[in-house]
């Protein structure tokens, strides 16, 4: 468990370092004025990230409070494999929403998303059907009232 949380703790620094690297790589051909602020920010970010990495590696020698702060938030973190799978599936549905938004249109995408998401999260079949239809109609009405420029699907809505 200790090792798992310790490896998990490296995720954020890894993302940050990757972000810094991508940013730095992209501005190499830019004029100096463009790099004037990003470069020092990158240096400082990398330095603080390295400090955190060092702390994570030598976590055992740190004080109890600091070690506690480094551990994942038990309330926020999913505890069972099923919970993790539901969250991953929900995220996949969200990405699916983005991809179908342009082709299926606003209202149909909402309906499809809700028809899949409600049962995934634990709503019964009747609740799913009623909830998805009523919510989709409400969102359709909202977009119409607000005069939103939403994509129209193959069925004309």
């Amino acid at each position, binding site marked *: 468990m200790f090792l798992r949380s310790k490896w*998990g*703790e490296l995720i*954020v*620094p890894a993302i*940050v370092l990757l*972000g*810094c690297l991508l*940013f730095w790589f*992209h*501005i190499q051909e*830019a*004029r100096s*004025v*463009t790099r*004037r*602020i*990003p470069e020092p*920010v*990158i240096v*400082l*970010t990398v330095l*603080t*990230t390295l400090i*955190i990495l060092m*702390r994570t590696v030598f976590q055992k020698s740190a004080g109890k409070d*600091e070690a506690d*702060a*480094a*551990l*994942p*938030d038990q309330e*926020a*973190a999913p*505890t069972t494999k099923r*919970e993790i799978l*539901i*969250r991953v599936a*929900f*995220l996949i549905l*969200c*990405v699916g*929403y*983005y991809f179908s*938004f342009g082709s299926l249109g606003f209202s149909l995408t*909402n309906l499809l*998303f*809700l028809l899949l*998401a*409600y049962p995934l*999260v634990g*709503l019964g079949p009747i*609740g799913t059907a009623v*909830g998805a239809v009523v*919510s989709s109609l409400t*969102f359709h009405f*909202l977009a119409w009232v*607000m*005069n*939103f420029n*939403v994509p129209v699907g193959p069925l004309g809505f």
Partner: protein
Amino acid sequence: MYDTEAMFAGITALFQFQTLLFLVLGFLIGFIVGAIPGFNDANVMAILLPFTLVLDPTVAVIMMATIYTGAQAAGSIPAILMNIPGTPGNAASTLEGYPMARAGKAGYALGLSFGASTFGALIGAFLALVLAPVLGMFALKFGPSEMFMVAVLGLTVVSTLASESYEKGMMIALFGILVSLIGADSMSGFPRATYGIPELYDGLPMIPVLLGLFGLSELLFLLGRATIADQGRRSSDGWSEIFRGLKNSAGHQINLWRSSILGFFVGVVPGAGATIGSFLAYGQARQWSKDRESFGKGNPEGLVATDSANNATANGALVPMLTLGLPGSASTLVMLAALVLHGLRPGPEFFTTFIVDAYSILFSTFLAAGLIATLGVLLARPAQHIVFVPNAFLVPTVTVLVFIGAYAWRFMAFDIMLMIVFGLFGAILKVYRYPVPAFMLAIILGPLLESNFLRATRIGGANNLFDGPINKVLVAMIVLSLVAPLATALFRRCKK
């Protein structure tokens, strides 16, 4: 300096049936828009702009101003109940409001929020009325170097937000600044870190990022719970908790005055905005609190500070808009457009040429404050039940609402994906105890820091940053903000 005759004429014009009708209507529209996460009051105001052309100019601007006030106050409802700020200015309200709602004190938190919002709006209205004729010229003294210092002052709040680990707060705030620099450089136009994605050329859109970091990330966590709040169902059935919160908000006198005045003056600075105002007020509330350890866990002082500050900021933002024609936000920009379209040109002459209209607009902010305490509280009762709606229904429904909010900002499907990416990142940050608000604050302040730093140093070199009395005062405030917590901690340790 104050024309009492014009004041009375302004009040008389305000108490016309048509004016009052559109004032209430504007407030209701703003309130509904503010309560829906991601829906932007500026967009709604822009949509309504052509319709206001048939109205009297003052009525049109009063309606716009009350939409703005209503949205600021109602933005706290989703912030408190679902951890999703209704407007960027309500981001800080999530810090204490949401933990209170999760602990079954949703009604109490809403009561506190509306009490503080009313107070903040009243103080903002009073200060705007008294100081507007003179304060406009003061706002003109804020050049790039002063604005840079204001942004740095805003960043000092990171030390407050990162209470668990200062290094983590620093790291994520620095990364936030870097992320905020994505997009075309203001000086050379070079598209930084866009990797050929045209939607990123204008930089990161704030609303989708905000909805992702606060909204989607929290919705992902709610999947593991039956309802938002596990307890307090019985106490949230009636008015008692809301009125208790409303009453108790008045008990935070010093906090209310400090936060409202701070919020107002931040609002007066064009471009600073309610987000900086509320975060600064939060930082101050924590620094002066006797119970600092409970901040982040549902401390009422923090909620009172943020909500009074952001409502005072809204009224403060009217001052440069009316007296200088300088809009500090998208909302005041639409208000400015409404004034210009009606032939009322804001500027230094506004308080002489259109003095009656000016006073009508300023007095209308008092009525709007009163509406927060009445209509706001009335609507808080049904709203508090959201925390007991089963997440199996709530999470997918609100997720679609969050998608719409992200899309509606620029009407770009790309923003939905951007929101999902930031939602995932926000979730990871929360799991590993990184302060998400610090990251968001840095994203908001980053462009302000960079553009003003470059402008200031181009004009007079690095020394320019410390020249002038305003800069010196701001530097002193920055040093004080950084040193005060250390000094207080040292003092407490010595006392022990």
